[in-house]
């Protein structure tokens, strides 16, 4: 175990996978000499050389399309896109080819590729950098969607992604890069997909989140305990596809209340899917309607105060919980 930030844990995962599997290579904008926009790939060019840590032109569709081809040619590419907003330029390649090739060829071909991208607000990067589109990717069958909240999960999930034969969309919240935590140094440490993590046990309400929102949920749970003597259970989904609803439903059946927290928009969002599945599977156990705490229905503004006004806060979560009692 060593304490490290999430960006360092991600780098460790990449380093270990590059050492373990000669077919793994990295490709993306500024990932080589510069070390990545969020310093995740820093030092890897020096260690593994330009063939395996490859800088690419600014061409998102091109990077993903070439990654698909490299995967078809027998390699395991890790492709980095600077932000989830920019990934929209590659959405066609991701959705129409990477996610569908296995199905369309009746299992003849598959695309084992890891696509990493940064998401989330809070860094004053405004409307075309900072959105949370995890739910968009989770919508498409054929993709796996991973959203770690802490360094240990980031490492274990990223290493697990390289062992998957499908395209894995690996989404990192920018606010989490600097988050510190204990990380196992065992090179065989993996976190399995589709296993939600109960970060905090509680008995009165279940707060479900993923990625950045998990930390707000934890802070809200602490506030609820201190101020209102409400015991909140916090569930970190870790992966949206596959989705571990069993853990969520088990928790809700225990607490009888559910609040879903995400940085994304509420309308048509992933929280709606969670809410519907809780209703389908635990309706009789619910003492209150499922609540969703999401960002405001606006593009992300730039000014710091405006940005915080647009994003959900721990106070919003506390308020949503209190309204259930």
């Amino acid at each position: 175990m060593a304490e490290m930030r999430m960006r360092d844990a991600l780098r460790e995962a990449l380093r270990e996978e590059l050492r373990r599997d000669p077919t793994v290579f990295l490709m993306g904008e500024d990932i080589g000499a510069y070390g990545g926009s969020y310093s995740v790939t820093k030092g890897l060019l020096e260690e593994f050389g330009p063939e395996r840590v490859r800088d690419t032109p600014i061409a998102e569709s091109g990077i993903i399309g070439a990654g698909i081809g490299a995967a078809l040619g027998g390699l395991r590419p890790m492709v980095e896109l600077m932000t989830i907003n920019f990934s929209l330029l590659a959405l066609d390649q991701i959705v129409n080819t990477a996610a569908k090739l296995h199905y369309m060829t009746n299992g003849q071909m598959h695309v084992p590729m890891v696509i990493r991208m940064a998401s989330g607000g809070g860094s004053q990067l405004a409307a075309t950098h900072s959105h949370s589109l995890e739910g968009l990717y989770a919508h498409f069958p054929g993709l796996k969607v991973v959203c770690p909240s802490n360094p240990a999960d980031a490492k274990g999930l990223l290493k697990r992604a390289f062992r998957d034969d499908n395209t894995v969309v690996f989404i990192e919240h920018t606010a989490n890069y600097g988050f510190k935590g204990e990380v196992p140094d065992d090179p065989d440490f993996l976190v399995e997909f589709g296993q939600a993590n109960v970060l905090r046990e509680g008995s009165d309400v279940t707060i479900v989140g993923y990625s950045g929102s998990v930390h707000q949920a934890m802070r809200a749970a602490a506030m609820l305990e201190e101020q209102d003597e409400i015991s909140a259970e916090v569930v970190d989904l870790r992966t949206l596809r596959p989705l571990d609803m069993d853990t969520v439903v088990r928790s809700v059946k225990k607490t009888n209340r559910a609040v879903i927290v995400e940085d994304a928009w509420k309308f048509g969002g992933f929280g709606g899917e969670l809410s519907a599945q809780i209703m389908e599977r635990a309706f009789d156990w619910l003492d209150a309607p499922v609540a969703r705490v999401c960002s405001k229905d606006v593009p992300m503004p730039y000014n710091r105060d405006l940005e915080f006004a647009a994003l959900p806060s721990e106070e919003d979560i506390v308020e949503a919980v209190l309204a259930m009692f």
Partner: protein
Amino acid sequence: MTAARPRRPRSRETLPDYLLSEQQLEDMYYYMLLSRRLSERMMALQRQGRAAFVIAGAGQEAAQVGAAMALKKGTDYLAPYYRDLGMNLVYGMDAREAMLNLLGKRDDPNSFGRQMPSHWGNAARRVVTQSSVVATQLLHAAGIGLAAKLSNDPIVVLTCCGEGSTSRGDFHEALNFASIHRLPVIFYIQNNGFAITERTEKEMAVENVADRARAYNMQSAVVDGMDCVAVYQTVRPAVDQARRGGGPFLIEAKCYRLWPHSSDDDDTRYRPRKELEEWAKKDPLVLFRARVETDGIFPREDLDEIEARVEEEVRDAVQWALMQPDPAPEDALGYVYKEL
């Protein structure tokens, strides 16, 4: 099958004017003809309500067959586009498989009824299926080329699209990527004069697609795509050069789409009859037959025999394929994720 008739065995010696052997020339004619006759029957099946959708390459057979024959079949990758029936036939698809694909039958080896017809994909033959979003496969070809280069595997990837697709960003991103990394990729553009209904001058301000290669410091060539021999003679050296590490190459085959865009299109709304009649005189099948006949490569009867053989194969394929089972409803499920 037609009655066996004793005939002179084909030589495999290279004929100097052709840079091809008699056997290769016979194969060329056979594949071009098979492509055309299959497409004609496919269109008829669509008109009879037995096939949902047909998209064909009539007029482009020479461009397709000549280029595919320049590759190492089964070793070099093919990332074709939806008109490339001729290429797929060279790569091992037979008439029955082509019909299974058209009809979306259970045993279609391309996709077992899951993908649209003419979006061929066959892992064993190294044919990569395309999305209907045009030019996306050019990037996949670049990626396969990158994998080959990183693995020191001396293969070549040939990828195709029409000239209309060269307006898409993926075309430019693929050329740029392949050129920066000097990948063994042949970008093979079949300029058939139409992007569905639009003429070339509305698609691009340059005269040739090949001119676009210059912007990426990529070698390029223009070839008469109605002449199968010329196509082979142009593509083959580019393939050999790419295999030796010479980098990517763009080849533009100038051809002409003799048919409407697809079974859903009415080309009389945008194409004068007279223009079509003029181009029909340059039909690649007619040109090829005239040339080998004039040069005395084969006796006329041998060419007639190939025609009869192809007719019979197509007739058999249609009858057989129509009787093959459709997928069962539960076959819609599965293969969404590859299991570990």
